[in-house]
């Protein structure tokens, strides 16, 4: 699936397109499919999110959204060397797949 991500304009926080807005949690990301380009253009123009882009992702057996590339997996969780600063999510299995 294709999901959309970027950084919030004001805070810089990593955000994910949830179908109606931008969420801090990768698990909220929805498949934007063929609408990706249109949503990206609209959201960039609305100046809410910095340089949003589409990436490949999948959903694992437990229902967690897993970005395909290592860089976006690190973005989804936080620095691997500072797990105390991780994005606050109930998904404790994330660190098993990030690298």
């Amino acid at each position, binding site marked *: 699936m294709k999901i959309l991500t970027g*950084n919030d*304009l*004001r*805070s*810089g*926080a*990593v955000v994910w397109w949830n179908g109606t807005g931008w969420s801090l949690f990768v698990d909220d990301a929805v498949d934007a499919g063929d609408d990706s380009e249109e949503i990206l253009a609209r959201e*960039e123009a*609305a*100046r809410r999110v*910095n*340089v949003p882009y589409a990436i490949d992702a999948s959903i694992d057996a437990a229902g967690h959204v897993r970005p*395909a*590339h*290592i*860089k976006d997996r*690190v*973005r989804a969780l*936080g*620095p*691997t*060397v*500072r797990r105390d*600063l991780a994005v606050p999510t109930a998904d404790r299995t994330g660190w098993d797949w990030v*690298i």
Partner: protein
Amino acid sequence: MYQYDSYDQAMVDARVEEFRDQARRRMEGRLSEDQFKPLRLMNGLYLQLHAYMLRVAIPYGTLNARQMEALADIAEKYDRGYGHFTTRQNIQYNWIKLEDAADALADLARHEMHAIQTSGNCIRNISADHFAGAAADEVTDPRPYAELLRQWSSFHPEFTHLPRKFKFCVIAAEKDRAAMRLHDIGIRIVKRDGAVGAQFYVGGGMGRTPIIAPLVRDFVAVDQLITYAEAALRVYNRYGRRDNKYKARIKILVHELGAAEYTRQVEEEFAHLLSVGVEPPREELARIAEYFAPPAFHHPSESWDLEQLQSKAAGDPSFRWDDGFGLWVRRNTHPHKAPGYVSAVISLKPVGGIPGDATADQMRIVARLAREYSFDELRVMHTQNLLLPHVRIADLPAIWAALDAAGLAAPNMDTIEDIIACPGLDYCSLANARSIPLAQRISERFAETGRTEVVGELKLKISGCINACGHHHAGHIGILGVDRKGTENYQLSLGGSEAEDVSLAKITGPGFDEDGVIAAVETVTDVYLGARADGERFIDTYRRIGMEPFKEALYG
């Protein structure tokens, strides 16, 4: 150290307000990201993987206790309680919000600091020998020249849209402790027949095309320093490549023209600019230099020398000489020009730690020690450590005890644990692989096996991508992280040095995965230990025996 006058203060204050206005226009949607990006970059604000990152300039790595405390306060007020000291003597905050950035800059300005030109295609923060003003072997303190350059380069109207970024480094000793020849312009202050002048090395750098800067002029009179720099920059601004960002640094221009032709063009521009008159008045350098007058060192009779320290410690267990203090004194102190004094390195490389990171509390402890024991002066070293430049040998026991209690007394300067590592894929949007976990695991491995001491001086440097922020080209051992089909892979290189014996490392062969490269580092140190002659450092043995034995052990 230098103090702002009302002019300097007004400049940084005006810049804060200018940026506040720019950020406002961005948040109101009146600037696109394409338009805003170069403006925020000129103020040190990047967008990284997880958030905005603010890079604060610490000119020539010098700051006082109050400034370090201000950095600690910013870490807590606007960030997550820590900062990261970099190879260019700056500090980076990883979690700054755009809406807070102008306030953070205003706090910096109140303490005579700024983030001006810490990014963008302009003249960046001027770096210098971290032992400046203290080292026993320096000709003179290089920092007045660095400050003169700082002021000249700040908001330079002609040079804010150069082909690419531009880094100066100033030293004043034969020994190079600042990677001088791996800068766009490296300046060595020298004395000839009693006259002070500057050697200009132009066109060095790391990145994807590492080049050692050639000497372009052996002596520029000190009252023509700015004019020569202006000429060197103008030739670059006019003729540096702008068609390909990977070929846009001045090193490519100098390389493609040849050093002789580049020099000829600079000399021509220099002669012209001398007739125009762009040099600051002579009195300005003298005014600046007064701020760098040596502190009032105590008479040697009020301190000890290192032998006295050792003999006192031998008779008194409270010194804990064998419990870490002795090793720390041996490894982490540096000879000082004043008798009875040394410079003391505060390692930000605890075993298993993140190279260069310091918490707000640690910054405050360091600030207190500077105030109490080092004439209110601190340095950021290009090795991502901190330094108390002027401490009495007699005060070392108290300093070490305080550092030890704060987790800041790792006795590992210039050892394999003293690793330079860029933030890598844990933080950086350019990175292809993580750097920090490698540094953590290698330092743990060598500390556990006790081999740190056996191996001695060994400079290991790790970059998470080809941009080489971790100086891997200049490591005795260098590691470069690459992306191999979506997984992290690491190339090993050997034989680099950024010191006065500057050389560029060569790649050993095919890359390794994370476990593999850690094992490979152990393998090459095995080869070294097996082959070294008396007194040889790793780099000396490598230069004597060459790459083959290492390759054989790694891939044979």
